[in-house]
């Protein structure tokens, strides 16, 4: 069943896209620039683990500084800005509202970029705090929170004055993400500050990471998936009921996760147990979402071959399932102690941030950018490269992670293997991480180049969308699928 858009619809869309043009492009391009910085730093920090003596003399290049810089650039530079760009555009389209005073968002976006830059420089010059993903000096935390809120308030008036009577599922997720993040960020910030108990601070750090993923990245990625998949499949979402259940499950349980990483640590045993159970219950949302999307797409899987947006989004959702399942596996009492302080967990974070969140957001960008710039992606080959290099990078990462984690765990249980070899097994992960970041860095080069061309208006000007296979000439049947 195809419902044709009326002229009225088209005109409305065009004017919404026009109002979004500068703000969204601004967030996308500056996010992409940070992603580039982050991947390079990621590669160097992986290399530092492999060759520890590298640039020994220079303390500015120590692992203890390069790695946090990499994470800050990746999360605050890339993920948050890309997410906010997607959030603004999706919200405008779903509520059918133009963005008023768009230039205001752009100005605040500049402040945000400046903050991220200051944070990175502070860590670089040794003023960091060594709390994962909150490494910047303490005085910056309130600034980050305020500027974030100034960026997301713009979606609230759009939502309040929405023209559609029924609320689409993506809107739930977007409003959720917009409001949950400040809560998570401020709570973690308070618990980590000097006055709080030290044990609480350690736990709050990992609670923050877990909730950044489940309460911010997941909702945005799911909002994208629930938008892109039905749009491209040209079908309604299969079951609204299940979609809403997925949302409420996430809302109910995600906040409890995080302490499972300290099982057997300095907390009463029930705290990590509750967190562990919450990690398992989040799987309900995964089941609901994935099966719902799969049913929406049933019989149309060939679209995967042609539509870049769908392909990236679907891959992102696949990694979402992998991430959630691996997180649940890592709390099984048999394997937990072995994995607890291994590289496994930091690898999982990368899987979530890059494999799941970023891939889905790329899907959204492939959809949005042609609409707001008015030109098509220059080359299908580059999209293919971007996709495959990223995917191989992530898969390398997961495989090495599993091998290293299992080998490390297995080894420790055999006292007759000399102590030092259990460390040797981490080599696998370290080499794997190097290769993975290299692949990801290469894949992003394709993406930046294309995005830059689009930004300066040098995209393709032809009729059809840029499709992964089949080119734009014989894409009659596939029109509307990009």
């Amino acid at each position, binding site marked *: 069943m195809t419902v044709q*858009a009326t*002229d009225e619809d088209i*005109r409305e869309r065009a*004017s919404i896209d*026009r109002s979004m043009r500068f703000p969204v492009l601004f967030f996308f391009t500056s996010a992409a620039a940070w992603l580039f910085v982050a991947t390079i730093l990621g590669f160097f920090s992986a290399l530092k683990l492999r060759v520890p003596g590298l640039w020994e003399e220079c303390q500015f290049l120590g692992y203890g500084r390069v790695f946090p810089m990499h994470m800050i650039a990746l999360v605050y530079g890339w993920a948050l800005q890309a997410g906010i760009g997607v959030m603004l555009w999706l919200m405008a389209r779903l509520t059918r509202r133009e963005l008023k005073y768009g230039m205001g968002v752009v100005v605040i976006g500049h402040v945000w970029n400046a903050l991220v830059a200051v944070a990175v420089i502070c860590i670089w010059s040794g003023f960091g*705090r*060594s709390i994962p993903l909150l490494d910047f000096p303490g005085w910056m935390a309130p600034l980050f929170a305020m500027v974030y809120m100034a960026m997301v308030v713009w979606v609230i008036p759009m939502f309040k004055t929405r023209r559609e009577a*029924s609320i*689409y599922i993506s809107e739930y997720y977007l409003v959720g993400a917009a409001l949950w993040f400040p809560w998570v960020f401020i709570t973690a910030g308070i618990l980590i500050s000097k006055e709080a108990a*030290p044990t609480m*601070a350690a736990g709050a750090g990992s609670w923050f990471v877990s909730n950044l993923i489940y309460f911010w990245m997941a909702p945005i990625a799911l909002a994208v998936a629930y938008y892109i998949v039905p*749009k491209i499949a040209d*079908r*309604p*979402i*299969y*079951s*609204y009921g*299940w979609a809403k259940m997925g949302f409420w499950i996430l809302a109910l349980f995600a906040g409890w996760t995080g302490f499972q990483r*300290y*099982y*057997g*640590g*300095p*907390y*009463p*045993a029930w705290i990590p*147990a509750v967190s*562990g159970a*919450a990690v*398992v219950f989040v799987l*309900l949302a995964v*089941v*609901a979402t994935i*099966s719902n999307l799969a*049913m929406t797409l049933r019989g149309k899987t060939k679209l995967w071959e042609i539509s870049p947006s769908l392909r990236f989004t679907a891959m992102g959702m696949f990694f979402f399932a992998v991430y959630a399942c691996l997180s649940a596996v890592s*709390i099984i*009492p*048999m394997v937990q*102690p*072995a994995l607890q*302080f291994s590289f496994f967990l930091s690898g999982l974070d990368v899987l979530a941030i890059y494999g799941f969140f970023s891939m889905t957001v790329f899907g959204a960008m492939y959809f949005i950018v042609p*609409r707001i710039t*008015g*030109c*098509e992606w220059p080359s299908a080959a580059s999209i293919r490269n971007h996709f495959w290099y990223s995917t191989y990078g992530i898969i390398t990462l997961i495989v090495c992670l599993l091998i290293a984690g299992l080998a490390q*765990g297995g080894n*420790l*249980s*055999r*006292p*007759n293997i*000399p*102590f030092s070899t259990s460390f040797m097994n981490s080599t696998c992960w370290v080499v794997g991480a190097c290769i993975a970041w290299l692949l990801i860095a290469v894949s992003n080069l394709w993406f930046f180049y294309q995005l830059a061309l689009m930004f300066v*208006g040098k995209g393709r*000007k*032809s009729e*059809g969308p840029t499709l992964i296979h089949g080119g734009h000439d014989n894409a009659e049947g596939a029109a*509307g699928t*990009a």
Partner: protein
Amino acid sequence: MSTGDDRNLDYESGTASVVDMHDSVRREKILQPSGAESLGLFPLVLCGLVLIAGGGFLFKNANGFSDSTYINSDYRPDPKPVTDDGDGEAEEVAWIDSWMKEGKKVYGNCAACHQPTGTGAPGMFPPLTGSEWVDGGTARLGAILVHGINGPMTVAGQSYNQLMPAWGTLSDKKIAQVITYVRREFGSLPEGDDGVVTTEMVAAARDMFKSQSGPFTEAQLKAIPEDKQLPGAKVDLQTGDPL
């Protein structure tokens, strides 16, 4: 018929003619109202399994939500050691290797704060590497592990003012293993010191500080001579027998 370039320009200046609008806007399908199908049995069954697994995990591990149980009785910091690698004959391992390996497992308790690499976290958790408390005699370490520390203290030139929980609930053997691990792995040991602490030495430490109630303060720790060692026989690193 306009060229592609013109169309792009029109789009920017906001033409009202739909036909002239950029293709990506025109070709896009509308978002249809969500459906209300049923997903069928399979996802339901899957959800049921997830619920059972999560609930089971919670009630097995929550220990009746008691605030004083820190480590479950069945928690093993790592899979139980097997001395036999499957081919039937037990191989010789140096005693110190298995002692260190066990120590590393117990260190899992400390890694949350002092970090797996022993570097600590600036301003919050002091480092174990390059710390005078670790490099010095074992008496102070024994005191720290059994009773914990509270209040301001200086480690490697930095001051900290936090609480280090007591680990006296661990067995003597585990405390001995973790001190050995920390000293040999992170410390720089004086000439002639192999860094090993035995179960017997930890028992002596418990005895030595049994009048202490609550965590130590820095001043109390300083009252223990810096190079004081816990009494106990040295052991052979290969066999673990007292020398």
